[in-house]
C-alpha cells in the first residue's frame, strides 16, 4: 500500500495525483498538498481513498506589476523558485517561513509567519485575493471585499475550506540582496528573553536558538539573531552565491540522535559562537533558511520519524511561563537538538492562524513511544496560559486539548458548515482534531 508523509516522515496510507493543471486536478479532491513540508498530518489524506491533489507542478506566474509589487501566481509556485527569480530584481516576499521549499498555496493555508512577525504579521496579511475551488466543485474568487469570510477562512484554514488555485499577493522592494545581521550569544534564558524583547524594538527581524537540553545555570543559553535588509552601502557588491544545497545521503540510524548527542550538539553549537557579538552582512539563505542547507535533514532522525512541538505563550503569561515551559520540557525528558524561540506580534485575521502576541517556542523531537505523553504534558501546561499550538507542525495533539486551546474553533466550524456542509474537504489532521468522519 502506498503512503504519503509530511516532513516528520510518519506515513498515512494514500496516494497523490499530480498535474500541471490544478483546476482539473482539484476536481473532486478532498485535499491539496504542496511540497509536503508541514511536519505532521495536515497534508495527508483522512482516508486512503481520498483524492489528494499535488499542486507542485502548477507553478506559473500569471502577472507581476513592478509599480506595485503585486504578483498573481498559481498556488504550486515554490518560494525557492520565486526568490531565485525576484530577489535579483530587487523584490522579496514580505513574509517567509523557515524553509524555502514551500508553495504559495501552503503559505496561505498555514498562514506562515517569519522572523518579522512582530512587524509584518503573517503571510496572509499580504495576500490580496485568492482563486479557490470549493467542495461543491465550483470555482470562486475571494478577497477582503468579496466572500471575505471564505478569504479569511482560507488563510490559516489548513486547506479545509477550499483548494487554493491562485494567489495574488504583494512583494516588497528590498534595498539590496543581503541581510544586515547582528548575532549575540546569551548566557541564560532570562538574558535571552530580555535581549529578544530589546531587539524586537529596533530590528524588524528577530529569532534565536536556545539550548533546552542542558539544565541548571546554562538552561536556555542561546544565540539570538536580529536582522534587516542591508543598505546598498552595507551589502557586499556581488549578489549572494547560489549554494548547491547538500542532501543528507542516507537515513541516520535511530540511535544517532539521543539525549547525549543532542546535548553535545547544543554545547558545540553554543561555543561555535565564540565571539559574543557579531555584526555583518549575510545572505538571505543563511539568515532565513539555515536548515535548507542540508536537503532531507529530516532523515537525521532515522526511520522512526520526528515531530515538532511549536506553541506560542501569550505575553500576559510572561517570562516565568516560558521558563516553566522549558523546565517542563526537560522534566518530560524531551531531548530536542533544536529549540527555536521568537517573538510574535498581534493575532492576524486568518481563521486558525497560529501566532498571537507572545513568545513562540519550537522544539523538535524524535518520535518514540513516549511522544504522545510529552505532547500531552506540554499541552496541559499550555492551555491554562492561553497559548496554542501550530497546526502545521502538529501530529500528536488530542482533539479535546485543541478545542480547549482554540476559542476560534466554533467560528471555523461554522465556516466549514457554510462552505462545505458535507465536510468533503478533509485531512488526516482534521479527522484527528475536528472529528471528520471517514
Amino acid at each position, binding site marked *: 500500500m*502506498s503512503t504519503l508523509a509530511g516532513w516528520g516522515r510518519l506515513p498515512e496510507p494514500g496516494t497523490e*495525483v*499530480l*498535474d*500541471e*493543471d490544478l483546476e482539473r486536478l482539484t476536481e473532486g479532491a478532498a485535499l491539496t498538498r504542496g511540497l509536503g513540508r508541514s511536519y505532521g498530518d495536515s497534508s495527508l489524506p483522512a482516508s486512503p481513498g481520498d483524492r489528494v491533489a499535488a499542486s507542485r*507542478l502548477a507553478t*506559473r506566474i500569471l*502577472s507581476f506589476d*513592478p509599480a506595485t509589487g503585486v504578483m498573481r501566481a498559481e498556488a504550486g509556485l515554490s518560494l525557492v523558485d520565486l526568490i531565485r527569480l525576484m530577489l535579483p530584481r530587487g523584490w522579496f516576499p514580505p513574509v517567509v517561513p523557515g524553509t524555502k521549499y514551500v508553495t504559495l498555496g501552503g503559505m496561505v493555508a498555514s498562514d506562515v509567519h517569519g522572523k518579522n512577525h512582530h512587524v509584518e504579521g503573517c503571510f496572509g496579511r499580504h495576500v490580496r485575493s485568492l482563486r479557490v475551488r470549493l467542495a461543491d466543485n465550483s470555482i470562486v474568487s475571494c478577497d477582503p471585499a468579496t466572500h471575505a469570510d471564505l478569504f479569511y477562512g482560507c488563510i490559516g484554514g489548513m486547506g479545509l475550506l477550499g483548494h487554493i488555485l491562485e494567489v495574488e499577493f504583494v512583494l516588497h522592494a528590498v534595498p539590496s540582496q543581503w541581510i544586515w545581521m547582528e548575532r549575540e550569544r546569551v548566557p541564560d534564558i532570562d538574558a535571552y528573553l530580555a535581549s529578544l524583547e530589546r531587539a524586537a524594538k529596533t530590528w524588524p527581524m528577530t529569532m534565536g536558538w536556545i539550548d533546552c537540553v542542558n539544565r541548571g545555570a546554562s538552561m536556555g543559553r542561546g544565540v539570538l539573531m536580529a536582522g534587516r535588509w542591508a543598505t546598498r552601502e552595507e551589502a557586499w557588491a556581488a549578489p549572494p552565491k547560489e549554494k548547491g544545497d547538500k542532501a543528507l545521503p542516507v537515513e541516520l540510524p535511530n540511535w544517532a540522535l539521543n539525549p547525549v548527542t543532542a546535548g553535545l550538539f547544543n554545547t558545540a553549537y553554543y561555543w561555535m559562537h565564540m565571539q559574543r557579538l557579531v555584526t555583518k552582512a549575510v545572505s538571505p539563505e543563511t539568515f532565513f533558511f539555515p536548515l535548507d542547507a542540508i536537503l532531507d535533514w529530516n532523515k537525521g532522525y532515522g526511520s522512526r520519524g520526528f515531530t515538532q512541538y511549536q506553541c506560542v505563550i501569550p505575553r500576559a503569561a510572561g517570562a516565568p511561563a516560558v521558563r516553566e515551559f522549558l523546565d517542563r520540557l526537560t522534566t518530560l525528558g524531551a531531548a530536542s537538538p533544536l529549540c527555536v524561540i521568537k517573538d510574535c506580534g498581534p493575532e492576524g485575521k486568518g481563521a486558525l492562524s497560529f501566532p498571537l502576541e507572545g513568545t513562540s517556542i519550537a522544539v523538535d523531537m524524535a518520535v518514540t513511544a513516549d511522544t504522545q505523553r510529552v505532547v500531552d504534558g506540554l499541552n496541559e501546561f499550555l492551555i491554562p496560559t492561553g497559548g496554542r499550538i501550530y497546526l502545521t507542525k502538529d501530529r500528536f495533539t488530542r482533539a479535546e486539548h485543541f478545542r480547549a486551546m482554540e476559542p476560534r474553533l466554533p467560528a471555523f466550524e461554522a465556516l466549514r458548515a457554510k462552505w462545505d456542509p458535507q465536510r468533503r474537504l478533509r485531512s488526516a489532521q482534521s479527522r484527528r482534531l475536528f472529528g471528520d468522519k471517514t
Partner: protein
Amino acid sequence: MKVVVFGGTAGIGRAVAQQLAARGDRVCLLGRNEADLAKSVADLTARHPAQAPATSAICDLEKPETFASALDAADRALDGFEAVVVTAAMFATQDALEMDVELTRRLTTANYANTVTFCEHARKRLLARGGGWLTVVSSVAGDRGRKPVAIYGSSKAGLSTYLEALDHKFREQNLWVLCVKPGFAKTGMTAGINPPPFAGEPQQVARDIVRAMDAKKPLIYTPGIWRLVMLVIRHLPRLIMRKIGF
C-alpha cells in the same frame, strides 16, 4: 536562439521554455488550448520582463491540419525560427490502452504518425534556411519491447528510429536532430504511475536537453544514468525479458 516549443505549456516543454527564456532565447509556444497558452506566455513574460515577450500559436498533435499554419505563425512571431523543440505527446498506461482500442489508435497516431508529420513540416522549413535544431522528446520505452509499455513504447520506437535516420541524413546540411530519451520525468503526463528509480524532475530533464542542443548531440538519455540502464536492458536475452515484468 529563436525557438518553437510544441508542448511548451506543461511538463518538460514548460521547463525547456523557461530555461531558454531565462538565458535570453526567444520562445514561441505551440499548444492546443488558448487559455493555457496565454497563462504560459504570461509566466514567461513575468519571469523575464527584459526579454522580448514570448508568443504562442494553436497547434494540436491530434490535428495534423494545424501543423503548417502553427509553424507559419511561429515563424512570423519569431521572425524566422532557428530551432524546433517537440515535447507534445500522449501517454496512457498499458492497461488503459489494452482496454480501449480507440485510445490505442489515437495514441499511436499522435506519438508516431503525427509527430513525424510535424517534424517533416519543421525539417523542411529549417533546411530551407540552411539548417537549425530539431529536438524531439522520445522515450527509453522505445529501446526495447517491454511488457508494461508495449504500445506506448512501440510508438516511441518508431519515432526514435525516424529521428536517428534524420540525423544520419541531414547532419551534413547543418540540421541538428536531437532525440531525447527521458527515463521517466515526474510530470502531469506520467501522473498516476509510481515513479521508477532514477526518475527525473522536469527542470533537470530540461537542463540536459538545452545542454545537448548547445552541444549539437544527436541522442541523450536523461537523467544520464538511464544510458547505462538501457545499455543493460538492450542486451538482455529475450528469454530473460520474457520472464521479468520490467
